[in-house]
């Protein structure tokens, strides 16, 4: 048994603290905020899995968040499916949207793709009003069945979703897939010269990212028993970007910590929106200038170590 990578070590400590939180400090408000944080952590981690590893910049993660929410809303209200069913199914719907949107756009060069991702959530947001007979306009969809009225249950639900997401994403990131994606990020042309279908891999990463974000959106919808146009707001996309950059891009765990940091500091303290948004704007700026790796940038090597061990076995070659 080789020494535990820094990565897993931290991961496990984090996980344990989160699991024990309600036991040691069962404060309703704290639990609520942490539930929000878990949901956003899922979105941030999945944003990181696509953009962090493929280097293609996605400004519209909110698209999947909203899609997941509305999908869950529909199924819950019209088909009477329970949260246990709507949440994964909403992830599926997000995948479909991801393919429909990613397949054509992912061939595009950086700037074009960035523009597309910037535009599509705006369109989706406006559609919820233009087609208010379907999407309910500003009413959104309300009267969803709740996950539970117990803060503890709500919290653990979100925690399970978050931990599952992070574990799956770390598993994938430290696999052949992750390796392929990072090679694409470093040099797309050279990557294709290794025999891989670059677009295919990008699409795979994109829909994985979509899937988890969709589930997060669905979880929030079921939690609030309501989903509205605000889920498409670019605020969410930008906030998620900030969380990831602050935590450390291409580390999966980084974004999660980033999410806790921002959500607890901002929502938790009930700071005025202007101050809070200003804070993460400035934070983002500072990190980008001074610590490109983010606060947990040093996790990157250990994620790599993990991958290399998985690919070529415990004993490191040539050392």
């Amino acid at each position, binding site marked *: 048994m080789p020494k535990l990578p820094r990565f897993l070590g931290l991961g496990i400590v984090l996980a344990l603290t989160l699991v024990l939180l309600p036991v040691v400090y069962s404060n309703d408000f704290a639990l609520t905020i942490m539930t929000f944080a878990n949901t956003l952590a899922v979105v941030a981690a999945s944003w990181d899995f696509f953009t962090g590893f493929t280097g293609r*910049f996605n400004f519209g993660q909110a698209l999947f968040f909203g899609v997941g929410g509305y999908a869950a809303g529909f199924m819950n209200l019209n088909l009477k499916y329970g949260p246990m069913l709507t949440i994964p199914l909403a992830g599926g719907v997000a995948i479909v949207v991801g393919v429909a949107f990613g397949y*054509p756009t992912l061939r595009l060069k950086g700037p074009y793709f960035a523009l597309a991702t910037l535009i599509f959530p705006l369109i989706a947001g406006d559609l919820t009003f233009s087609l208010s007979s379907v999407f309910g306009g500003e009413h959104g969809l309300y009267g969803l069945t709740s996950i539970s009225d117990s803060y503890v249950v709500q919290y653990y639900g979100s925690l399970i979703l978050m931990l599952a997401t992070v574990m799956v994403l770390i598993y994938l990131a430290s696999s052949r897939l992750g390796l392929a994606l990072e090679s694409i990020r470093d040099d797309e042309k050279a990557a294709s010269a290794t025999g891989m279908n670059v677009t295919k891999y990008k699409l795979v990463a994109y829909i994985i990212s979509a899937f988890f974000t969709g589930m997060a959106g669905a979880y929030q919808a079921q939690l609030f028993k309501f989903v509205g146009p605000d889920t498409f707001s670019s605020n969410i996309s*930008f906030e998620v970007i900030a969380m990831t950059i602050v935590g450390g891009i291409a580390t999966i765990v980084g974004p999660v910590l980033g999410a806790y940091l921002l959500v607890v500091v901002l929502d938790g303290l009930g700071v005025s929106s202007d101050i809070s948004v200003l804070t993460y704007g400035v934070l983002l700026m500072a990190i*980008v200038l001074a610590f490109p790796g983010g606060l947990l940038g040093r996790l990157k090597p250990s994620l790599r170590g993990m991958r290399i061990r998985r690919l070529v076995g415990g004993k490191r070659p040539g050392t």
Partner: protein
Amino acid sequence: MVLPEILVFGGLLGAVYALLSLGFSLSYGVARILNLAHGSFYMIGGYVYYVFLTLSGVNGVGSLLLAVALTFLLGIALYLGLIRPVRSAPVRVLLITLSAAIVAQEVVSLAFGDRGVGAPFIIGGISAPLGVVVENQRILAAGVSLAMFLSVWLLIRTTKLGRAVRAVAQDAEAASLMGINDTRISVITLGLSGATAGLAGALLGPLTGISPDAWLNATVVAFAVVILGGLGSIPGTFLAAFLVSYSQIIVAFEVSSSYEIIVPLAVIAVAVLVRPKGLLGKVEE
């Protein structure tokens, strides 16, 4: 039949869009900078005009000039302070400009509130070209935009500075070998794009009102126009600006106002897919 309306409104709007997008096109075409904070210049320009006109004694024209001057300086500051240190990594440029935009938005809303402000016109009154009633301010906005757009274009086409700019746009390395100072050119480019966007904001702001989050739409419009016209192609930008404005106006008149935002965006999205290099764009590598 609303043809005259479409012609007039589309044309007037397009001119301002062209000016708004010009700087975005320049900063990408010349300095290879995708400046997400471009719309912030527009927003700030609008606010500067408002502040000087309503809260201080300065008259309309003066406020307009101040808006241009300040956004010019802001453009330079943005480049030297934030973009230059991370210039080598495009992703970090995207991030830094995004964060700059967010910060600008929140600082402004802390100062003037979320609700946005409307400023008085430079010239009041209305007139009726082709029998379509429009505010003189709107005609002025279009006229000034057109003039500014053309003069910047001429600047780049004819002057020595312009030649340097184009040299950098062609091949930054070669240009620096020819002794052209890349930084100086980038500074000027960003300054210009700040000033032009700021002017657009100061001209259109009084007509549309201006709010702290106006930057996002402005950036999207500029981005869309430039992509549609072809990254780095100024004539393409000019053409695309009118395509966007006309598609918007036509939808508003012939389909429904409630689609006037969605449809143009969708059109652009499709256009990008069908012809990634844009109308007049060179092949993008």
